[in-house]
């Protein structure tokens, strides 16, 4: 596939692995911010391959994982109401709310429709004028423009039966929360390439300076991930706290200006509870007053509740890099992908699930590659 295959080239990957080994004089600790990067690192065995020179901590960039259980409960409540259709991404269906997931609620009669795009939910609302179509909107700045465009379309079409249940989050405040923690072990960040495609990376200079760590904007394919790691190690070895863009084919310094304008029209920045991390100052996006009539919480009189404490799941400690998933007492015993205690074990990109699936808990005995 053009512009994907080239970035999975095994020969180039091997060459980069060697360069990374050559660049490191000690073992560094990096955090890849985005769950999609976690997925790629583990799927291609990059974390294992580089274990001796770099420790990779899995960051908070999994919107599925940080969506508060109470919002999932709201989604379930709406999906169970007669005359309602709840639409959302496939990612959200298995994530447990306070007591059950959307998929479990479907067995009780919840009306659900998986969609690939929020714009398809707008089309559904046009086709089903007597049904209240709610789009359950999760995701970082990458996904927020899609929700914003959907809401703008609903506004332009004056659709009375379309609304959104939003749980959009912002990456930068979460990175800052992690960087400023006293027990932060992160030496450098691999910033989320598709978030930066929207936001740009100008805002990271302040972060890099203040917390004395390099930040490398990184993509998702194996070659992108290896280049990101290499650049970050090179900066660390030089003692540099630069911000570098290693995902140049998609990311520009100021991001996508048109997308940012759309976001600014539709959303305002607000404090936001993150599952596992608690209230993150300025950590979320909520609908601007002009678009508030499309807010499902307002429209349907849902109770805005504060985040419930997740007793057993240690997702906060995992996502801020204080512990590895395997250090959680419940990992692999009481908490597995089949029976998750918390969100990071559910989503395929959740740090715990990714660990459970891919991590070589015991080294492989298989014969070396041909």
């Amino acid at each position: 596939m053009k512009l994907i295959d080239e970035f999975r080239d095994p020969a180039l990957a091997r060459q980069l692995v060697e360069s990374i080994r050559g660049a490191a004089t000690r073992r560094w600790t990096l955090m890849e911010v985005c769950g999609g990067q976690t997925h790629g690192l583990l799927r291609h065995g990059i974390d294992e391959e580089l274990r001796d020179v770099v420790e990779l901590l899995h960051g908070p960039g999994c919107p599925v994982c940080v969506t508060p259980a109470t919002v999932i409960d709201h989604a379930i409540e709406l999906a169970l109401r007669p005359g309602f259709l709840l639409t959302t991404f496939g990612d959200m269906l298995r994530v447990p709310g306070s007591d059950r997931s959307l998929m479990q609620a479907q067995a009780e009669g919840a009306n659900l429709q998986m969609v690939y795009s929020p714009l398809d939910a707008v089309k559904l609302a046009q086709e089903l004028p007597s049904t209240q179509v709610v789009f359950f909107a999760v995701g970082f700045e990458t996904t927020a423009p899609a929700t914003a465009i959907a809401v703008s379309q609903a506004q332009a079409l004056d659709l009375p039966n379309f609304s959104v249940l939003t749980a959009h989050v912002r990456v930068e405040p979460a990175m800052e929360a992690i960087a400023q923690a006293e027990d932060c072990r992160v030496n450098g960040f691999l910033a989320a390439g598709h978030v930066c495609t929207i936001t740009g990376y100008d805002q990271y200079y302040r972060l890099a300076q203040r917390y004395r760590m390099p930040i490398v904007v990184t993509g998702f394919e194996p070659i992108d991930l290896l280049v990101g790691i290499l650049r970050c190690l090179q900066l660390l070895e030089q003692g540099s706290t630069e911000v570098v863009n290693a995902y140049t084919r998609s990311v520009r310094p100021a991001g996508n200006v048109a997308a940012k304008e759309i976001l600014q029209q539709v959303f305002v920045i607000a404090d936001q509870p993150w599952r596992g991390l608690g209230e993150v100052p300025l950590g979320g996006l909520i609908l601007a007053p002009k678009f508030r009539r499309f807010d499902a919480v307002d429209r349907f009189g849902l109770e805005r509740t504060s985040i419930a404490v997740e007793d057993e799941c240690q997702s906060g400690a995992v996502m801020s890099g204080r512990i590895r998933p395997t250090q959680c007492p419940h990992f692999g015993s009481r908490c597995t992908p089949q029976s998750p205690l918390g969100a990071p074990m559910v989503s395929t990109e959740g740090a715990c699930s990714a660990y459970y699936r891919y991590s070589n808990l015991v080294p492989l005995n298989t014969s070396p590659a041909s």
Partner: protein
Amino acid sequence: MNPGPTWHCPTNTGVGSDRVSLLLGEGGRGSRDFLRQQITGRFPKVHAAFADAVHLPNVPGRLAFTTDSFVVSPLFFPGGDIGKLAVIGTANDLAVSGAKPRWLSLSLIIEEGFSIKVLEQILDSIAATAELVGMQVVTGDTKVVPAGCVDGLFINTSGIGECVPGFVSNTSTLAPGDVLLVSGPVAQHGLAVLATRERFEMHSPLVSDCGSLWPAVQTLIEAQIPFKALRDATRGGVAAVLHEWAADCGHSLCVDQNQFPLTDEVRGLSELLGMDPLFIANEGTMLVAVPEIYVEPALTALRAVRISQDAARVGRVEPKSIVPVSVRRTLSRPVPLDEPMGALLPRIC
């Protein structure tokens, strides 16, 4: 359809209208009319009573016997329909057991109100597919259930096949060094159904691989390939088969993701939806395990028939390690391949 007079008795028998009625499955006149009109015409070997047992001819060797139920939604998808699938699924289960598919039972569970026209289309498809794979429908049953009890139409088929002496799929015989082959491009069926069922608004030339594997098994037998194991990679895809085989033989299996043939549209759609083709269902693609020295003759034989013309070598059996199934992707280091858990969902995250 019904050549009788144009008037209908108000206490109708359930046939003659354009919808399936509950009466049709109640026995008596309605059932008999249905049988005559819809079943025996298409399947002449079905005993007229459609109820009592059929007597099968003598065959010299052993028999293989299998059963499966089909509940696919939607009933029609690019490359097939529930009727074709109900024949192919059972025929393939026999084929990968090393048995030539011969006789088939056909049981229909129909939702009240189901369109007779659609039912006829599906029965035609069953008849055509059965002929294509060389199976005879010899017995069956029809039930109609109240609306809402099933999703349109469920089908159960059982099949009997004739075993070919000397060729058995026995996964417990897999040994380190044996080589794994795949008969063709993977993930076509699951994605074709998903793209039709869900509201993804994707327009693709994607077509299910739904097709008979017997020609591929037959060509291996004719080429005297002493295969050790065959399995059609249906639900859970290739990954499910690999995990079953690893558990059966007690060794580890390692595959190379890049060796699996994929069509362009499967690549495009699986990238878009964030789904791994190794976990997606097939209905005309199998895994084959052969001793190393038979790899080339096996591939040559497979590539000579249409259903397996893109057969490829994809992996091997290795000494037991802590990881039952592993996969090589970009780096040469193998990483564990998950065992499929539940339905695979598309993701955007």
